[in-house]
């Protein structure tokens, strides 16, 4: 009986060590702050951040400002809670504390502009999605009727590409996405492939290819293949990149030798 009581007490006192790279404003200098969070079984990084929010005291016992972060779905489908955990970018909602060596180091994905603490601004990706027309245009002044049917097996394959949640992890992992290049990133190349594969989306495929043959497009890829290792959704990003490479090669010859075929 007494042994159980001791064990319970030890479990209650167990803490998780965190080191968090904090930044008060977009233009201020980042600094590290340590936290010791009471351990709870199966807790994830977000549970720890919520604990800091509830009781904003750092490892030295001093009161501090709560650490801010971004999150929505908490089931790894929205991409909002991406951050660099122990050196690697991933979603913090599926980052279970038990799986990490301590201290667990949290940093924002500095490939993107840091807003505050762990919150980054991924607007670059959303702007890029607009540039590549990552949608199927169906609006018109009259009813365009049904589109062509998509073969079921193709739909199953395309579904894998559609799992992309614009989380930014592949951009953070890519050595060629930085402030010296305008590379839109691996995810965007895969989105071009997805929408060009759609029977209705493919009606505008030359426009998407023209965009990725321009500034920040496919040519910035240097084949380090980190993206496919980093992608939390297991999207075949390097296959998409090579596929877009082939499509742009064909498009380049069409453009140069003056084919009047815009699509197919």
């Amino acid at each position, binding site marked *: 009986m007494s042994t159980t009581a001791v064990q319970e007490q030890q479990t209650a006192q167990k803490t998780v060590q965190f080191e968090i790279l904090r930044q008060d404003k977009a233009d201020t200098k980042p600094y590290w702050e340590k936290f010791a969070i009471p351990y709870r079984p199966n807790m994830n990084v977000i549970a720890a951040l919520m604990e800091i929010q509830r009781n904003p005291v750092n490892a030295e016992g001093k009161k501090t400002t709560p650490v801010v972060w971004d999150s929505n779905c908490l089931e790894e489908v929205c991409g909002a809670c991406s951050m660099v955990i122990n*050196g*690697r970018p991933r979603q913090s909602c599926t980052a279970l504390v038990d799986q990490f060596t301590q201290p667990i180091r949290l940093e924002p994905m500095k490939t993107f502009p840091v807003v505050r603490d762990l919150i980054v601004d991924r607007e670059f990706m959303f702007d890029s999605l607009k540039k590549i027309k990552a949608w199927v245009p169906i609006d018109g002044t009259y009813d365009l009727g049904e589109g062509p049917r998509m073969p079921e097996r193709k739909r199953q394959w395309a579904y894998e590409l559609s799992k992309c949640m614009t989380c930014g992890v592949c951009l953070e*992992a890519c*050595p*060629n996405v*930085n402030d*010296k*290049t*305008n590379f839109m990133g691996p995810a965007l190349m895969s989105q071009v492939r997805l929408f060009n594969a759609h029977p209705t989306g493919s009606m505008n495929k030359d426009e998407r290819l023209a965009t990725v*043959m*321009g*500034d*920040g*497009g*496919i*040519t*910035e890829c*240097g*084949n*380090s*293949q*980190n993206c496919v*290792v*980093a992608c939390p959704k297991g999207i*075949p990003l*390097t*296959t998409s*990149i*090579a*596929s*877009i*490479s*082939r*499509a*742009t*090669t*064909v498009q*380049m010859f069409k453009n140069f030798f003056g084919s009047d075929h815009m699509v197919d």
Partner: protein
Amino acid sequence: MSKEADFYLRRLHSLLGIIPVGLFVAQHLVINHFATRGPEAFNNASNFMGNLPFVLFLEWFIIYIPLMFHAFYGLYIAFTAQNNVQRYGTFRNWMFFLQRLTGIFLVIFIAWHVYETRIQKALGADVDFDMMANILSNPFMLVFYIAGVLAATFHLANGLWSFCVTWGITQSPRSQTIVTYVTIGAFLVLSVIGVRALFAFV
């Protein structure tokens, strides 16, 4: 230069790396291999290459202009990368890093090599077996030349792999893996040819 032109410049960079620069490197190493058959064989081969018809035209359009474009545009590419092999220590990420590292080293090595041989020839020196034997009698230069040859064969072999991806020839992970093994083979074969030739001068 317009950022919009990057696509075509980068594709040109990829193409020139294989044709003609890569082919020239392979040919150069094979011709060097005559040194293993003795000074006379090497000098004959060297004289044959050096006295080809239209040799200046061939040199400028097959070697200097494509090589300089590949070298200087390559430097720009190398310095726009933010390498992260500490974070992702995968094979491909190391190849990405080494491709840029060997590229930068080769710009230095080739500049020195051209100064020591082709420019000296233009200034009146004889490019022959004795000249190379003389250069490589210095242990430091021998190491420098071995590093140069290995950097060149690596850069060519790995460049062949990325050429296949860049032009969309190999798409699937499987085809890319197969080409990885093929290019490792090309690296080993060219390295043996190149390094054997170097040791023939010692």
